[in-house]
């Protein structure tokens, strides 16, 4: 406990890279399969966008937004979910780790147990989603009608950082429930992947109540929607305060703090398996 927070953070980051690096080396020994799966990951995560393009062969806009604007929203949320999934996505296997007893083994090693759960079976192929999202986002950035001043560049970068943190928090928060019941991992998916699916479209296609829920309850609207309104210079279609457009860091801090609290509580209430 004497170790300051910064040192602990640095050590846990290093340990994560060490453990994850080991898994990357292991997967690299099955090169062909690894490359095929990375490719598959790019294609799978790209289906959603192709589906949007198919829709746009029938319409010119959705919820008042054109294809380029939607590509901006889509790319942003894909990059954020992809990065969060890459780093902490494995946390959803917590229930399995508990059942198999490998969680006990992690508890007696000098590395944060969350770091170990996330790094275990680390799959670099998940970069596929990040790559796919980046491509769409890059295309959108070159096409959207925006005057790129420093403020907009800053908000765009901040959007990617905060969005990643929001999804990271939701992943960990959802997984923490597996300390109580090890069977509910799919419910958490509804919030992470579901949150991602919702934010692929302009929120104007949803009723007002849904948008409120996505703002104040499960704040995925801060991943891309509010920053995008700022970047594209669109007044809030629901008449919500413009301050929300710059509030993503607040949402990220709140979600991550809640996640940390839930995780710590879970670890302290952990019951282990067997006798």
């Amino acid at each position, binding site marked *: 406990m004497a170790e300051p927070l910064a040192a602990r953070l640095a050590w846990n980051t290093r340990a994560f890279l060490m453990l994850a690096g080991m898994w990357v080396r292991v997967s690299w020994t099955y090169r062909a399969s690894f490359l095929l799966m990375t490719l598959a990951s790019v294609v799978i995560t790209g*289906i959603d966008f192709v589906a949007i393009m198919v829709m746009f*062969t029938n319409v010119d806009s959705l919820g008042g937004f054109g294809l380029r604007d939607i590509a901006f929203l889509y790319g942003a949320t894909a990059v954020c979910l992809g990065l969060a999934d890459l780093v902490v996505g494995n946390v959803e296997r917590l229930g399995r780790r508990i059942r198999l007893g490998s969680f006990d083994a992690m508890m007696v090693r000098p590395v944060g147990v969350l770091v170990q759960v996330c790094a275990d079976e680390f799959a670099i192929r998940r970069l596929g989603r990040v790559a796919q999202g980046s491509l769409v986002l890059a295309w959108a950035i070159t096409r959207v009608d925006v005057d790129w001043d420093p403020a907009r560049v800053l908000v765009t970068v901040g959007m990617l950082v905060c969005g990643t943190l929001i999804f990271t928090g939701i992943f960990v928060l959802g997984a923490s429930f597996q300390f109580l019941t090890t069977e509910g*991992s799919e419910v958490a998916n509804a919030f992470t992947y*579901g949150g991602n699916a919702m934010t692929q479209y302009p929120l104007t296609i949803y009723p007002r109540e849904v948008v409120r829920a996505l703002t104040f309850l499960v704040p995925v609207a801060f991943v891309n929607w509010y920053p995008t309104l700022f970047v594209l210079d669109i007044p809030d279609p629901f008449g919500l305060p413009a301050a929300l457009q710059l509030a993503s860091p607040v949402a990220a801090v709140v979600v991550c703090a809640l996640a940390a609290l839930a995780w710590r509580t879970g670890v302290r209430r952990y019951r282990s398996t067997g006798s």
Partner: protein
Amino acid sequence: MLYVAVALRSFRRYSTYTAATLAGIFTNSVFGVIISFTYIAVWKENPTAGGYDVTDAVTFCWLAQAMIMTVAVWGGGTTDDVADRIRTGDIVIDLYRPVSFLGWYLAGDLGRSAYHLLTRGLAPTVVGALLFDLRFPDSPATYLLFLVSVALGVVVSFGIRMLVACTAFWLLDQTGVLSLAMVCAVFFSGLAVPLVLFPGWTRDLVLALPWAALVQTPIDLWLGHSTGVEAVAGLGLQATWAAVLLLGCGLVLRVADRRLVVQGG
């Protein structure tokens, strides 16, 4: 009657995962809501897109959610057992059982799909009907046609999944093939976006591919978009694909069997 017993046992096996089933229904419902709003937005811009109206589109969305597990669009089912048993070598036992190998596993998969139809098929449909205005068939005959079509869809899906599982005879690691197969199933079945929205000739192409039998064909029967001759043609195409795929499976298994003998098991 052996196959009925196998199907029943499989039904019971899947019915033990209650918590997972409830969680799955929740997820299907959440995605049903999200996709409904997306379709509503599309049909608001273009009220006759793909020949559907907005009620058709929303109904399509919920039925598609109901089909995910029923016809195993994302994979899974008894063919996963086959892949496992090929890897461990236990498959040899199955191949020399005095019952049809394909029949055995198909019966199991139909039992599984019956369970999933009653839980993960029915529940999201009810949720969808409570939240949105859905279209229901007005004649019992349509329900019957729909069920026949779903059953054929399961067989087609089984055939595809079995072929994928059989790649394990030759490839050490089938996860790559599995994910590519999943991409095709999600995209070409209508789950990602109704196939009727595809532009021009691509629409005719995807409707003729085997994956259309998984989601698009049964739902078109439900919505009453294919009636009479069209309905028969739809079912006929499904049956044709089912037969072709099962024949393909038989062929592949024979080749694999010979390979096992040559290698000495």
